[in-house]
């Protein structure tokens, strides 16, 4: 199993990142930090999926003069392009909410907000 | 012979339409009364028009629609259902007249008459239900639409009684639902058109548990002890409600449901193999006696009536649990016998309350001189309950005793005798108080209840006598009960 893990070390890295991100989401008190944690998680999933497309020795899948096989798998890259946009959009909304919460409450610490309720 | 006919659904539909009309136009007193009385009459006519056919053995069926693939909303007027339907629609008409008089000073009359009609609609639905699911549908609807009637006063006490009522009956309903589910899984059908749809192949254990669940479900409304707790508290409702719903519709719906379970879901032959049926008989016998004992100690008139109802309902259940033709005859006939006698009593209690404001029994001394006709009706009903020959109650006791002997369980005859004595112990003192114990020094003037209260009371008392004398009244032949028994026992 260790051998397999070592071979798939890219995937392992994304699992570790995922857990770090989730840790931040759960434990951080500051709403922005929470959201940074979420962004770390997003990044880890994107890294995982992009890593799926890697082929040893592969080149960017752009055909044209001088291109030569093997090419990396274009599908994960396309998916993650979409994924990144989704993540950015979520972030925009989250930050807007944080702005509003700060305007209303004067704080973005989760525990202080909870006390206000 | 089965005939497709619209009348089995027309009967509940008339009451249902009446509900709508009352809610729409009920703010006008005239239209409220017009629709209530009109619908009651129309429905009685519809039900009666099926009677000749039913006596000849015709079964009217009407399948409205399918709820689910396989189980439909079906109506089926067989002898047993007709018996129940005739009793309730006759009494609806009478009670409507009474209620118009009784409810004059009350609030929220639109709501009252609207839901009143809805309750009767669902009761007929129960009587004519073609399958267990349809029956359950109306059974639950009955629970819901009696709730506004129970809490009509909107006092904290009424709300509390309403909560208690809902708690008991809804839990009962849940048991019925569970029972129906298991029945459907075992039998693959829920139809009530056959004498028994389950078979022994499902195993004695599951069948026993299923039976317990169904009995618990229907037993709540039928007020078998220890499931009777809601009935006395629900007596806070206005008297016509207590009368119709708690002496006729609701409690009889439970008893009727039990009859359907025993005769149409399980079937007599199957139940003979299940020891649990004997326990049901013992429980019924216990309830007969215990209910009467408790009744003796009640001073509130309506509460005493309530416990008497608890006791009387178990006659029906005992009769059915004996699994003999005579027992069954008693059980079915008692639906009518108890209904007419008990409703007389409630009318009396209500009339006294409206006319004199008295609700406790010890206040009734000399009441017979003030309200002689009302108390005469009371006397008739009381004698019926005690089981004096020539009155309706005697018929039941006679057949029930025969049934007990037929099944070889003679000790139930002793229960009958004991019950008669107990009944005497709590009904006769009132007669004594009313007629023979004029409070000294006061002048008793004749102060009879208003005609709308008195007429229905007397009418019911006449019915009680007729049921006792000839075992039948116009439109409710004893042979109907016998036809149902013949079907059940395959005779």
């Amino acid at each position, binding site marked *: 199993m260790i051998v397999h893990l070592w071979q798939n070390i890219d995937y392992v890295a994304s699992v570790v990142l995922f857990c770090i991100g989730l840790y931040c989401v759960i434990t951080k008190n500051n709403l922005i930090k929470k959201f940074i944690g979420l962004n770390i998680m997003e990044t880890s999933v994107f890294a995982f999926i992009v890593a799926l497309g890697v082929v040893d020795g592969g080149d960017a899948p752009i055909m044209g003069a001088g291109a030569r096989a093997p090419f990396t798998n274009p599908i994960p890259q396309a998916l993650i392009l979409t994924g990144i946009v989704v993540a950015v959009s979520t972030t925009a909304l*989250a930050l807007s909410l944080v702005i509003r919460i700060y305007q209303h409450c004067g704080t973005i610490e989760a525990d202080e907000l909870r006390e206000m309720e | 012979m089965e005939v497709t006919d619209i009348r089995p659904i027309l009967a509940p539909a008339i009451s249902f339409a009446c509900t709508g009309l009352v809610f729409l136009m009920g703010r006008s007193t005239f239209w409220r009364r017009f629709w209530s009385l009109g619908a009651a009459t129309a429905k009685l006519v519809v039900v009666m028009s099926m009677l000749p056919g039913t006596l000849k053995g015709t079964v009217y069926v009407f399948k409205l*629609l399918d709820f689910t*693939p396989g189980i439909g909303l079906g109506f089926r007027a067989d002898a047993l259902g007709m018996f129940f339907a005739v009793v309730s629609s006759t009494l609806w008409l009478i009670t409507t007249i009474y209620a118009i008089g009784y409810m004059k000073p009350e609030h929220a009359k639109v709501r009252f008459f609207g839901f009143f009609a809805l309750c009767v609609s669902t009761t007929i639905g129960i009587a004519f239900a073609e399958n267990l699911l349809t029956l359950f549908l109306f059974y639950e609807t009955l629970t819901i639409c009696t709730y506004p009637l129970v809490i009509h006063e909107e006092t904290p006490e009424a709300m509390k009684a309403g909560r208690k009522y809902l708690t008991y009956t809804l839990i009962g309903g849940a048991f019925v*639902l569970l029972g129906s589910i298991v029945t459907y899984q075992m039998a693959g059908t829920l139809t009530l058109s056959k004498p028994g749809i389950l078979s022994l192949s499902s195993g004695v254990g599951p069948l026993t548990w299923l039976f317990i669940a169904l009995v618990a479900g229907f037993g709540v409304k039928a007020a078998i002890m220890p499931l009777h707790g809601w009935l006395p508290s629900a007596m806070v409702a206005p008297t016509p409600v207590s009368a119709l719903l708690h002496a006729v519709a609701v409690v009889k719906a439970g008893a009727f449901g039990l009859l359907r379970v025993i005769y149409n879901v399980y079937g007599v032959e199957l139940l003979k193999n299940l020891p649990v049926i004997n326990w049901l008989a013992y429980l019924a016998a216990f309830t007969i006696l215990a209910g009467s004992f408790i009744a003796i100690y009640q001073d509130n008139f309506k509460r005493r009536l309530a416990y008497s109802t608890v006791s009387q309902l178990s006659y029906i259940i005992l009769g059915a649990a004996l699994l003999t033709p005579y027992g069954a005859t008693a059980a079915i006939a008692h639906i009518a016998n108890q209904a007419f006698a008990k409703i007389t009593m409630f009318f009396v209690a209500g009339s006294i309350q409206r006319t004199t404001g008295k609700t406790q029994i010890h206040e009734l001394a000399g009441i017979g001189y003030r309200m002689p006709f009302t108390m005469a009706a009371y006397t008739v009903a009381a004698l019926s309950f005690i089981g004096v020959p020539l009155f309706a109650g005697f018929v039941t006791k006679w057949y029930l005793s025969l049934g007990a002997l037929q099944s070889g369980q003679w000790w139930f005859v002793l229960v009958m005798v004991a019950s008669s004595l107990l009944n005497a112990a709590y009904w006769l003192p009132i007669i004594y108080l009313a007629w023979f114990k004029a409070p000294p020094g006061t002048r008793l003037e004749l102060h009879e209840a208003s005609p709308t209260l008195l007429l229905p009371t007397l009418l019911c008392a006449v019915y009680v006598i007729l049921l006792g004398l000839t075992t039948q009244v116009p439109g409710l032949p004893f042979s109907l009960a016998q036809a149902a028994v013949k079907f059940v026992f395959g005779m």
Partner: protein
Amino acid sequence: MTPSSLLVGIIVVPLAGAVLTPVIGGKAGKHAWTWATTVMVATSVIAAALVNQVARTGPFSAYLGGWERPYGIELRFDEFSASVAVICLLGLLAIVFSQKYAAKELPPARLGTYYTLLLLNLTGMLGFVVTGDLFNLFVFMEILSLSGYALVAISGERTAEMAAFKYLVMGAVSSLLVLFAIGLLYALTGSLNMADISDRLTGSAEVPAMLALALLTTGFMVKAALFPLHVWLPDAHAIAPSPVSAILSGLVVKTGLLGMIRVYQIYYGAKVLDLSSLNTVLVWLGAISIVMGAFFAIFQEDIKMMLAYSTISNIGYIVMGLGLASQYGIIGATVHIFNHALIKATLFLGAGALIYQTGYRNLSDLRGVGRSMPFTTAAISVGAISIVGMPPTAGFLCKWYIALGAVQAGHPVFGVALVFGALFIFVYYIRMVNSFYFQAPIHPEILEVKEAPLTMLAPVLILAALCLAMGLLGRIPLSFIEPAVTRLLGTLGG
């Protein structure tokens, strides 16, 4: 119109409507309501045509860009996708309802955006239920989630924004779980088309497949607010504007369950794993959800908060039905997805009408409102009776079917839990009915309140009528969904 172009239309028409709303709606969203209503009417017509088509011919597909499976994106319309009809109906009614409601309750500047987001949300759901591609499913899930978060916050209240943030964080985490699982399934099969994944998953490594299943289930169950992943739901659904609550509670949480059905379709077909342990977990969680949702609801005074908790209970029903994995159970669960949407929309829109007219939202403050708003309260009562599962309403048949499913699956004890859980739910609905009709008003002026305006009353009454009709005519949805469930379980081999 060919079936496939209809299938595209069900997504593209509301999408075009949504992106054009700011342009056509005018500066302050003056015409936005008219426009949004028009768009939803058109979409509903398409939905009706689609449902009619699937009833006649069975499932059909549209291949976008003309690329056949698995090279392009496939839109697949099966019986489960017939939920488009409910989505369109509820969307239309909620938008109609919003005309007066939003104008009063929302900041005027946000009015146009409100309709845009509603249409986007509906687009997202429509896409979610008709797509046959796993990644496309994710994209539509994000559209509906993102618009959902914003709709919760749109009233501009402080609490609304905090509820939206909570919703957003949990929603985003769950989306990531789903995306992670999509990645895993892609790694195992090399495909994103659900049918193709199902075919190719057979015989692949068990552990990653199991992990993907776990992640998908967890992700979708967060969206569906199954206990104990429900913490975001009550605030978000209670604080959102009522039409939004109706859509969120009626439809958006259901997308999690429909997503779960898609997962089942993949895994039942692939036969790569034994799903019985997952099913056991779901059944238990469902049972706990029923009880906990009902339990918390009892303590709520706020009418919308109470409705929000009852959603958790009902999600419990559905999850339990799915977890039972028997014919009746799954049929009941699926139909309850539709029926609960109708019921909950009745309740939330009705509650919205009460709040709009009276300004009160606590049960005790609303005492006596039954006399001044008889139609609205009657509709709410029908909804209440229905959600408790009293016959002859929509809620009953599902309860009947799921309980039957429990017996069929050999776990009658869950049937018992279900039936008695429903009683528990009754406890708090009877409080509501009592305060409407049978208790003396605390605020006497409530008796002077007028009945809700027609644009609010009509949707509520239509929905209440449907609650009754779906109870009496339950055969129609039940037999409609049956072939799909038979196919689903047929692939299970049992």
